[in-house]
């Protein structure tokens, strides 16, 4: 597979959220607006790229029996870095994302990619794969965040799209998160099918 395909597969064909149903907890929790969705995806992508790089560089040195433990420590380290960076430079975003930044540690996308891809492929390919998966995750989070923000406040990324919108409070509540993502997943399937034909 070409490097370019390695990147684009994460966006659509193997989208981590819509197709593989991974990393649902941050996807649902922080997407009350597009900016939070974007920040969360950026932090996750950072951890994904860094840990994929480290894992693929050192893959021969890590003994098989302790590989999961090693991956976990590497991931948790990068997550702590991301968490402190956000807290130091973007305190409002750090406060809004709350415990969901540390919870990147258990985001199955990251451990999944380390185990299934980075530990078996070259550094360059692992990097391409991580970038693709990160972008795919970002696509899902920004789409969901924008959708919820639009219906909740009539805004996207804080800009008014529909003036005088009567707020739908449900969209920023947990119930709205589940229902919006359910609708997006269905929409994704419809489009995928159309494209295939």
């Amino acid at each position, binding site marked *: 597979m070409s490097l370019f395909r390695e990147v684009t597969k994460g966006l659509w064909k193997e989208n981590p959220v819509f197709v593989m*149903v*991974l990393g*649902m*907890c*941050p996807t*649902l*929790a922080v997407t009350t607006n597009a900016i939070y969705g974007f920040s969360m995806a950026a932090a996750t992508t950072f951890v994904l790229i860094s840990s994929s790089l480290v894992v693929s560089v050192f893959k021969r040195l890590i003994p098989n029996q302790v590989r*999961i*433990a090693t991956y*976990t*420590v590497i991931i*948790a*380290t990068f*997550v*702590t870095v991301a*968490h*402190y960076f956000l807290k130091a430079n973007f305190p409002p975003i750090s406060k809004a994302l709350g*415990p969901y930044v*540390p*919870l990147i*540690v*258990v*985001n*199955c996308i990251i*451990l999944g990619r380390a185990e299934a891809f980075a530990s078996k492929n070259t550094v360059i390919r692992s990097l391409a794969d991580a970038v693709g998966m990160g972008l795919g995750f970002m696509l899902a989070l920004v789409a969901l965040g924008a959708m919820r923000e639009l219906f909740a406040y009539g805004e996207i990324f804080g800009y008014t799209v529909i003036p005088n919108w009567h707020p739908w409070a*449900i969209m920023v*509540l*947990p*119930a*709205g*998160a*589940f*229902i919006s*993502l*359910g*609708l997006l*997943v*269905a*929409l994704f*399937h*419809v489009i995928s*099918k159309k494209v295939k034909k």
Partner: protein
Amino acid sequence: MNLILIFIAAAITNNFVLTYFLGICPFIGVSNKLESAFGMGMATTFVMTLAATVTWLINNYLLIPFKIEFLEYVAFILTIASLVQLVEMFIRKVSPELYRALGIYLPLITTNCAILGLTLFVVMRKYELIEAIVFGFGAGVGFTLALVLMAGIREELEFADVPEPFRGTGITLIIAGLLALAFMGFGGLIGS
């Protein structure tokens, strides 16, 4: 009194799955059969109570006295992983029957974000040891409740004619949304 409040808040009003979105992976993955949902719930409740206790001790007797709180996430995730491993070995030795019932769910629990989320909440909310234990148990009960409810609905759903694009994940998420909506009715149970 306070302990009862913590329990109810963790199990119902701030249900981990339906308000904090923690443990969604097993919630979607293991909720198609009532029996397996119950098994998963039990195993998770057990590990949650244990994890709340052990990480509380680690945080208060290791991380805080030595001022190494920045190791929190690394320490907690390793603790949870080893706890799950220990519980698995222990159950296999002591009760093969229980192992058959819960064993297959145990490895899945390490990456269940509800466990790590729980331990982080315990630190953030500065619970006492006994409060942390009750909180862990309550969160586990809430997780089991959500999982079992979902499984009950999905078993019925097998006979329903779901529109094609919604089959699988889509309809599960929408049902979860309706459940979350229903659970909102419990809000305010504690404030008053």
